[in-house]
């Protein structure tokens, strides 16, 4: 009878006290308010930050206008993001003809898929996808973007612009400058005098001139030296200039990594009968590149941001196209919105690269892996 009672006969064991070391509350207690002095400092700093950030948040978010299509829709005191949304198409595609913008979309989608595939370690067939990304994709992207084949309308590179142009320049720059930089770094450490001299001269020349000069030379001076009937595309010239310029920086970053690898690694490879390229590719570079990932990504980020310098040779990248919009008679006076948006776009890409590099560094850290 007793065991079928509706009431418990014994006390429940006491429950564990709520864990106060976890969650936001716990984190605050552990890091910001763990003592009288720290509490005071935290309050002061938080107040100061709020005081600084509040007007900015008010302007960008709380008092801002997001919806509409003309400047008449901007009635608040804050930012007028309508300016951005009204021009969004041109910010992304530049002067690319509207009817052909689906081609750009396909290239964007392919690029995103390839980057994701290569960046996510779990996905298989890395080697083949990587090979396609380096060999197949540029050809496909070129055919799609430039047109002129398979009945696609020809779009000259001077019509390219906006985010699309920025990504084209940055991608070609990044993909081109890394291998070239590796070769230059190896060349600079070579025992062969000719190879060494060529590498040193190349690196010191390109590193010694400002990027603006390089672009200007590529755009204005080069056509003066080649025969009139030979026409290099202006974008192509700029791309080569950017690639050479950044490969010189890359070479020095990578050389730092090469120098950090002890002589013993190379000797062990030699003693096992491995040839120069095998030792370099299988033993030295995997270790050296891993060491200088922060430097390499640093260079990538600098490269990405400096794509906006193509403005001076008349190419309209993301920043330039936004600036061009500022002179639109219907939209005068929205330069702050324009620059803030441009900054945000650049920041998103650069921050993504930075985070990914940190992730890769942790993943490749074999020396303490347990």
């Amino acid at each position: 009878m007793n065991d079928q009672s509706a009431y418990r006969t014994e006390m429940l064991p006491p429950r564990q006290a709520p864990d106060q070391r976890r969650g936001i509350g716990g984190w605050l207690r552990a890091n910001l308010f763990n003592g009288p002095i720290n509490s005071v400092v935290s309050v002061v700093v938080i107040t100061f930050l709020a005081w600084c950030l509040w007007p900015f948040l008010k302007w960008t978010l709380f008092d801002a206008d997001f919806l509409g299509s003309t400047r008449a829709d901007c009635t608040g005191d804050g930012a007028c993001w309508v300016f951005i949304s009204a021009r969004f198409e041109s910010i992304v595609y530049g002067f690319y003809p509207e009817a052909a913008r689906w081609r750009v979309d396909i290239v964007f989608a392919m690029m995103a898929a390839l980057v994701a595939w290569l960046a996510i370690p779990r996905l298989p067939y890395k080697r083949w996808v990587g090979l396609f990304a380096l060999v197949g994709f540029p050809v496909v992207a070129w055919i799609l973007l430039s047109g002129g084949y398979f009945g696609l309308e020809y779009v000259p590179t001077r019509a390219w612009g906006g985010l699309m142009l920025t990504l084209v320049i940055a991608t070609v720059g990044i993909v081109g400058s890394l291998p070239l930089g590796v070769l230059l770094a190896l060349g600079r450490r070579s025992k062969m005098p000719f190879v060494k001299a060529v590498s040193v001269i190349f690196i010191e020349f390109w590193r010694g001139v400002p990027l603006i000069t390089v672009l200007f030379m590529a755009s204005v001076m080069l056509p003066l030296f080649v025969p009139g009937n030979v026409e290099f595309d202006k974008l192509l010239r700029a791309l080569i200039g950017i690639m050479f310029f950044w490969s010189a920086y890359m070479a020095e970053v990578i050389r730092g990594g090469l120098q950090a690898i002890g002589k013993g690694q190379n000797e062990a490879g030699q003693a096992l009968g491995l040839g120069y390229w095998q030792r370099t590719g299988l033993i030295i570079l995997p270790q050296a590149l891993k060491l200088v990932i922060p430097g390499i990504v640093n260079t990538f980020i600098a490269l990405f941001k400096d794509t906006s310098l193509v403005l001076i040779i008349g190419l309209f990248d993301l920043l330039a196209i936004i600036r061009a919009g500022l002179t639109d008679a219907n939209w005068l006076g929205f330069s702050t919105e324009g620059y803030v948006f441009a900054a945000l776009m650049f920041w998103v890409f650069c921050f993504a690269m930075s985070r990914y590099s940190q992730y890769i560094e942790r993943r490749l850290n074999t020396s303490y892996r347990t």
Partner: protein
Amino acid sequence: MNEATASDTRNVDDAKPMIEIERLNKWYGDFHVLRDIDLTVAKGERIVICGPSGSGKSTLIRCINHLEAHQQGAITVNGIEMTRDIKRIEQIRRNVGMVFQHFNLFPHLTVLENCCLSQIWVQKKPRAEAEKTAFEYLERVQIADQARKYPGQLSGGQQQRVAIARALCMRPEVMLFDEPTSALDPEMIKEVLDVMIELAHEGMTMLCVTHEMGFAKTVADRVIFMDQGQIIEQAPPSAFFNNPRSERTKLFLSQILGH
């Protein structure tokens, strides 16, 4: 070569030499590191090279697989004469395994990958076959259970045993040991020496630069004493330790044995 000679007396003069070094001279700038070295090593012979630091003993064995280039003299390994030709050098290196003082394992590869790398890229073996060979030798140095770990996770003694297995995977004719126990903690020296002693008993041709005189007494056919780039004295271990002829050898022995 006749098998009876190889297994019992190991008489140097009977066999076709594995390594022949004639009048070897080497300079680092003005510094004369190796002076007129003549050395013949028979197949299956085990040689211990000792001497004070800076005497050129490491340099000598590093010349045998051309980690160091010599300026004068001739080196012949397993019938192949050393030239400047990189193809020829790599051919010699395939016959010569080397173990370093600081192990020089590849830290970005697992133990197993360390052992397979040169089999796959130099000997062009399929991966499965390379791994089979790797496990065979890792088993012999009793470290097969650590095959999937990275070198950084192993102790010094374990790393050095892996390094020995890695060299053996290439099935070399000669093994060079460059102070293999000098960088180890005392309690790990034995596990590495045991592997080396076992290897010696299996008839591997070995040249060991080492200060382990116990090892020299146990397995060496010949002990070579070097000083200032020259071979001062060479003799079987019993004669070398009991009746050293030169004063410098006596001094050296009294310093390292006289505790």
